[in-house]
């Protein structure tokens, strides 16, 4: 009974996320219409068989645009999480394992930084780097996500520091590097994997917010957030545009959220 329930979240999240991932991957190579081409259909047409999500005021196919926009959003989110996770894990592992003054100082700085909402920090970094560029969004969000990853991994590594198998590896003369990567890292996945899903979701939402504000991804690149701001301006004439883009964001975050929930429950062993 319990076992079945635990896997339910993983399964549902996995199926939903897998489906979305397949559509988005497909969108990188093929979309029903050219996402940027105008007048591929009638203007402001509601959902139909030819245009499942309708068209916008330029007669662009919204499904094609959503597929492409979701691709941009996911690419940025993945890149952001990669920066945050790799740098954060490295810092967290080293400070958690070695401890000492550096650990103390870095964690204080991290605490101070995580007290600030990520969007606010990212906005500051963006305004320093220059608004409206795709790579700046990735850099800004990636930097902002480092402290939270560092904090999570530090706790995990610090708790493993004096475990017997780590002690024996040390006695056998294994180098710190080997201990960290071979012995400790695989045992922190129960913390790392849920942190990755949460980080991904935060990145999707943060990117969407910034692009919605017009200081994240800007044309010719399209992301879901930017498209939603476009959709808001045609809310009265083409409400399906907002529903399609906003709904895609919700589905994306929801599916990864379910995955994270499933991972957390599996590792805790409690429902």
């Amino acid at each position, binding site marked *: *009974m319990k076992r079945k*329930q635990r896997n*339910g*979240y993983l399964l549902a999240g996995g199926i939903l996320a897998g489906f979305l991932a397949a559509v988005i991957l497909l969108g990188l190579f093929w979309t029903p219409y050219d996402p940027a081409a105008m007048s591929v259909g009638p203007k402001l047409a509601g959902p139909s068989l030819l245009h499942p999500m309708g068209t916008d005021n330029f007669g662009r196919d919204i499904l094609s645009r959503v597929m492409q926009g979701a691709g941009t959003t996911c690419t940025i989110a993945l890149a952001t999480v990669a920066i945050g996770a790799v740098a954060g894990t490295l810092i967290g592992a080293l400070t958690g394992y070695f401890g000492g003054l550096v650990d103390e100082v870095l964690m204080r700085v991290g605490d*101070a930084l995580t*007290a*600030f*909402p*990520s*969007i*606010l920090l990212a*906005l*500051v970094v*963006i*305004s*320093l780097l220059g*608004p*409206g560029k795709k790579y700046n969004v990735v850099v800004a969000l990636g930097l902002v996500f480092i402290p939270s990853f560092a904090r999570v991994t530090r706790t995990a590594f610090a708790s493993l520091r004096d475990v017997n198998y780590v002690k024996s590896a040390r006695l056998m003369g294994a180098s710190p590097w080997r201990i960290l990567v071979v012995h400790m890292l695989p045992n922190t996945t129960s913390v790392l994997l849920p942190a990755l899903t949460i980080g991904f*979701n935060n990145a999707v*939402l943060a990117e*969407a*917010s910034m692009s*919605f*504000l*017009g*200081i994240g991804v800007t044309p010719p690149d399209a992301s879901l957030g930017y498209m*939603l701001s476009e*959709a*808001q301006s045609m*809310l*009265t004439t083409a*409400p399906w545009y*907002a529903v399609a883009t*906003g709904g895609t*964001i*919700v*589905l*994306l*975050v*929801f599916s990864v*959220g*379910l995955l994270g*929930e499933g991972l957390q429950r599996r590792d805790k062993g409690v*429902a």
Partner: protein
Amino acid sequence: MKYAAKRIAMLLVTMVIVSLLAFVAFDLISGDPATAMLGTAATPEKVAALRAELGLDRPLLVRYGEWLVGFFTGNLGISYSYGQPVWELISSKVLVTLVLSLMSFVLIVAVSIPLGLRSAVGGGKLEGVRDGVRTVINQLCMAVPPFFTGILLSWLFGTVLHWFIHGQFPGFAHDPLGSLGYLLFAAISLAIPRIAMTTRMLRGTIREELQKDYVRTAISRGNDRKGVLRRHVLKNSLVVTVTFLAQTMAEIVAGSIVVEQVFAIPGLGRMLVASISSRDYPTVQAIVVILAFWVVLAGTVADLINQRIDPRLRLGGRPV
């Protein structure tokens, strides 16, 4: 008292550090405002004259000191894009954002605390099913970005039902009640994901507390469940909750930046976005520092409340 004094001193130090960082960062990045303000009319002599007039030819720390004094006396410098004092531009907007954030905060507390309590105490035959439903709804609410809710709400209540006119914020001086009504929809869209998170946090914290030995002991000694919950469990969960709510306050302020844009609310967030786009650094700097102070202040208030609740914190210990 000693603790409070120490904490307030820490707050001041943090504020100085935060504002210094913001000042230096924007000073480094913004290049020469004199050249920017003069635009194409810039000649070396004119630039030098304007720099002297703006006081830019003096050392960084001196200018920071002046800026900080100015910050507390309402002199935040001149906006590059409007040529007006920054304080004049943002003073009316501070109140709007403050009210929006507080409304949202009240909503979050009022909805999520009863919900969290109920879901934590719940049990019985269908607990497995209910937990599943709850988790799915919870994840769904967390997945809805406030700006999407905002668009849907403004479409439903603005365009369809005409309860408010999108883009026409009445202003507190003109129509206080109407303004509150206008802000309510923004506050709701801001609150939904945070309500989900707070409920979830409460449930987790209380559940964890209920597993502890003292609860079992108390119940095995004949105390009734409700009494134990009220007297011990809730009290012990309070510190975590207060800390979480302080973080929530910070997140709301950040979220208001986006939601103000959706509802065309003339608040700090909207001003911030506009000035980032136009690279109006004095304005960006002032708003960033105000928002940062807000965040730091929320954290300090939470700490002060917590040391009232938990005497261990007063003695310099850490919550268990």
